[in-house]
């Protein structure tokens, strides 16, 4: 129902090469979001991806 502003979403890998999370700008602050379904920011990212309003870039 509510929407936070998320931009510049990009997966990041850890040093083992595993996809570890999403780096994103949330309400103007760069943050690291874990791939934890219970994390509300991750849930919101998935919701915005499903809605077609956000794309997550692949890891560098």
């Amino acid at each position: 129902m509510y929407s936070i502003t998320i931009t510049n979403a990009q997966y990041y890998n850890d040093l083992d090469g595993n996809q570890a999370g999403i780096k994103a700008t949330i309400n103007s602050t760069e943050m690291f979001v874990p791939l934890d379904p219970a994390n509300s920011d991750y849930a919101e990212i998935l919701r915005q991806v499903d809605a077609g309003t956000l794309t997550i870039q692949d890891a560098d």
Partner: protein
Amino acid sequence: MSRARDFADLAGAADAGTVAGTNLIINGDMAVAQRGTSSTSVTDGYYTVDRFSFTPVATDELAVTHSQSTTVPSGQGFANSWKLEVTTAETALAADELCIFRQQIEGQNLQHLAYGTSSAKSLTLSFWVRSSLIGKYSCLFYNLDATRTNLQSFTINTADTWEYKTITIDGDTDSGAGFDNDNGGSLQVAWIFAAGTDWTGTPHTGWGAHTQTDDYAFSDQVNFIAQTGTFYITGVKLEVGSTATPFLHESYGENLAKCQRYYWQNTTNAAYYAYQYVSTYKALPVFFPVPMRATPTADVSYSSGSFTPYQDDEYHFKAYIASSYTDTTGYNTSYVKFNAEL
């Protein structure tokens, strides 16, 4: 109150499966404000008092200051309240506009309510409130797991005067009304300041299936944000049973620890340093004061370098950076902020 009444209330609470007066709301006395004590943000989020979020939706004129205030009801033992001050009014409330104050509660903390069974427990919400605008305000109970709502109201009778309000709702016996037994948000309690016509309609005042267009607010409630004014609230308590019992004042430390399950920060510069853990990498760990609700979102500022989080969880955060023993740079944090709010 007589001893007989005390024992009767205790027996009733015992029947309800909980200790008398246990508060399902965290930080109901508005004492903890880790993020800050004042904000002018008009986007959905947590800004001042912990565990409560301020949520304007689609407003385009509104300007506010929301803050942890020391204005409190006299003689009730509170030191703080949450204050909303409208500094620029939303003069024309569009259909999609909404403005609320709310808290969500984890499902695993609600199992004793037995929702979804014939034994579903009643709940009583009590709070102290003061507003510059008299009239009817909506108060929404929202079962987020079952998408069911129960809309209630309270009335401000006298402007700029503290008033004590209680609202009792029946337990929801609908077979689909059970709360998930997990760490997700299951029950939301919200106070409604204004609601456009998309959010009002023909509400039901008992439990029923939620539709945005008829459940969120009463159409005849006040529009608090249509003019400048102030609204205060404190002493919020949600308890099992049909009787409001006195607010249980916790120590600040107990309250803070409960809040830190959802949000924690340390803004002390250089509180944490990186160490060399293999020849080519440095790691910087931060252990949380209490286990967090879930693996939190990390907002960490470093003195230098670009760190990458590594296998963090609800107990700790750590990040690494490529760096050798001969690297003479000192790596430390400028601040750390971790968010596992609902």
